[in-house]
């Protein structure tokens, strides 16, 4: 992690940060999670439909569940792919961005919290990929993804004959039955809701206060990085070699 006090005016370099697979992953993930939240909410607390129609003409819950499960499959394989990409992708996609492996990681996290959350004046910490706090939150998010997949497929296994969901048939026993499983699944949903709200806000925040094209980076893959930071990073890379 390289820090530099920035000077005005900015000289920006265009840096390719998010590879196409990461971007595709991101939006597929975002979309499927939004669908899973919406359908999950409905499954948990369906609307009152005082319809005069016959049950045979309606299949609302069935459809909602179907969408939930389709989205769940997309979500799962997309997630699995991202884990793979954490090993083969570029350095901004690597798993080291997420998983704290040394003390420096936590020190940098604290620096980010100080500047971004408590807004103490002082050195702004600028990074190219995820900042440390973001990276760590994504790490927690990935764990939550895992929990949601385990609990979701654990629940799903009882209704499926396919071998894949049945790989998860052991899950209910671990937590003491489907009831607890559903609760965990439901609680974890709230993590995603809160994450999404904060995440989207912070993305806008960074875009606004830093002006580096944060939002568009998930579209085209490019970020605009200050000359100083770019150079500092370059030096650090060379040193390593």
């Amino acid at each position, binding site marked *: 992690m390289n820090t530099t006090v920035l000077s*005005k005016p900015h000289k920006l370099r265009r840096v390719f940060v998010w590879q196409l697979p990461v971007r595709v992953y991101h939006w597929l993930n975002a979309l499927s999670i939004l669908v899973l939240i919406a359908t999950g909410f409905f499954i948990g607390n369906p609307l009152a439909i005082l319809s005069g129609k016959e049950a045979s003409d309606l299949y609302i819950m069935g459809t909602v569940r179907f969408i939930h499960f389709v989205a769940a499959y997309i979500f799962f394989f997309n997630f699995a792919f991202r884990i793979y990409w954490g090993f083969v992708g570029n350095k901004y996609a690597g798993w080291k961005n997420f998983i704290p492996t040394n003390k420096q990681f936590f020190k940098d996290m604290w620096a980010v919290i100080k500047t971004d959350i408590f*807004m103490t004046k002082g050195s702004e910490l600028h990074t190219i990929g995820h900042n440390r706090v973001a990276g760590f939150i994504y790490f927690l998010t990935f764990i939550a993804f895992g929990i949601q997949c385990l609990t979701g497929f654990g629940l799903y296994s009882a209704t499926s004959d396919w071998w894949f969901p049945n790989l998860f048939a052991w899950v209910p026993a671990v937590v003491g039955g489907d009831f607890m499983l559903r609760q965990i699944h439901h609680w974890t949903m709230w993590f995603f809701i809160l994450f999404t709200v904060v995440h989207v806000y912070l993305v806008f925040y960074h875009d606004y206060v830093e002006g580096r094209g944060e939002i568009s980076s998930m579209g085209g893959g490019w970020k605009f990085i200050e000359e100083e930071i770019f150079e500092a990073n370059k030096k650090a890379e060379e040193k390593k070699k």
Partner: protein
Amino acid sequence: MIIETSTKRKTYYEELTEKGYSRRDFMKFCTMIAAYMGLQSSGVAQVTEALKTKPRLPVIWMHFQECTCCSESFIRSSHPIVADIILDKLSLDYTETLMAAAGHQAEEAMHKTMKEHYGEYVLCVEGSVPLGADGVYCMIGGKSSLDILHEVAEGAKAIICWGSCASNGCVQAAKPNPTTATPIHKIIKNKPIIKVPGCPPIGEVMAGTIVHILTFGTLPALDGIGRPKAFYSKRVHDSCYRRPYYDAGLYVESFDDENAKRGYCLYKVGCKGPSTYNACGVMRWNNGVSFPIQSGHGCFGCSEESFWDNGPLYQRLPNIAGFGIEATADTVGKVALGVTAAGIAAHAVATNLRKKKMIDNLISEGKESEQELKAE
């Protein structure tokens, strides 16, 4: 006069023919049992053969912390021939609910079986065992249930845990579990244990479980938690005849409303069928007459672990302790969402104040560029 008992044992087939049942009756019974156990038609022959040749099985049935409704359910097992065999034709050598002898004579009968059929008898347990306070919360004949359980489990070939009490502690183990009620599998570790949960389990499920052991001399296939797969592998929800209403999105909103009269799904008045493994939807109760959902009340998951603490009954989600009576995960989630939104708003305002200079710089930088462009 106390009649001396010998150990000569008869097969079911002998018993039955002596009692005047025809071969046809016998075959009918075997077919039914095979069907219960989900066997193909070839299995019928196996059942028939087994019941024709296997001798009777001694059974000791203990009562600890319980309400005896499991015994009651057992005697409701409805296919007459099953009740007959299980009740009269099993050698039910000890069961406080029905046995003629009391006190010392009762204990004597039990010890005789424990000795003469060491390693052979099946131990049925109805009820949980309180572990704390030297076991004084359940005592029989001046001994603690804990000591009795260890003693009688010793020579048992297998243990059947009847009902939720023995399988998961049931009502007395609900919070705060003041008597330290403990299910059997947490105490006896060195014996095969079959759990037949339910409060109570369906009579025919109980009969079916025993009959499996009689027939094959092996325990029925068990799931990950130790329940016979034959009866506990499907959720109530998956075999519920109201399921089309669930899928259609048609729900009872409150008891006895128009939707209830139409027989809509009970999901929104708290039905726990979607997370409950039991045979109620398939076999129904009391010889197929009805089951909770058919009679308008949601399933409350009486065969699941800690179902008493997963209430309230009439809500899909449980309340979260410490958050007031109606606080579910959603209530907490909504509050958290509100707090987050407020935090974000505050942060946004603070950003514009504290980082005003930096933002102003960015803006002026942008404006300068704009000017430069205009100038050109």
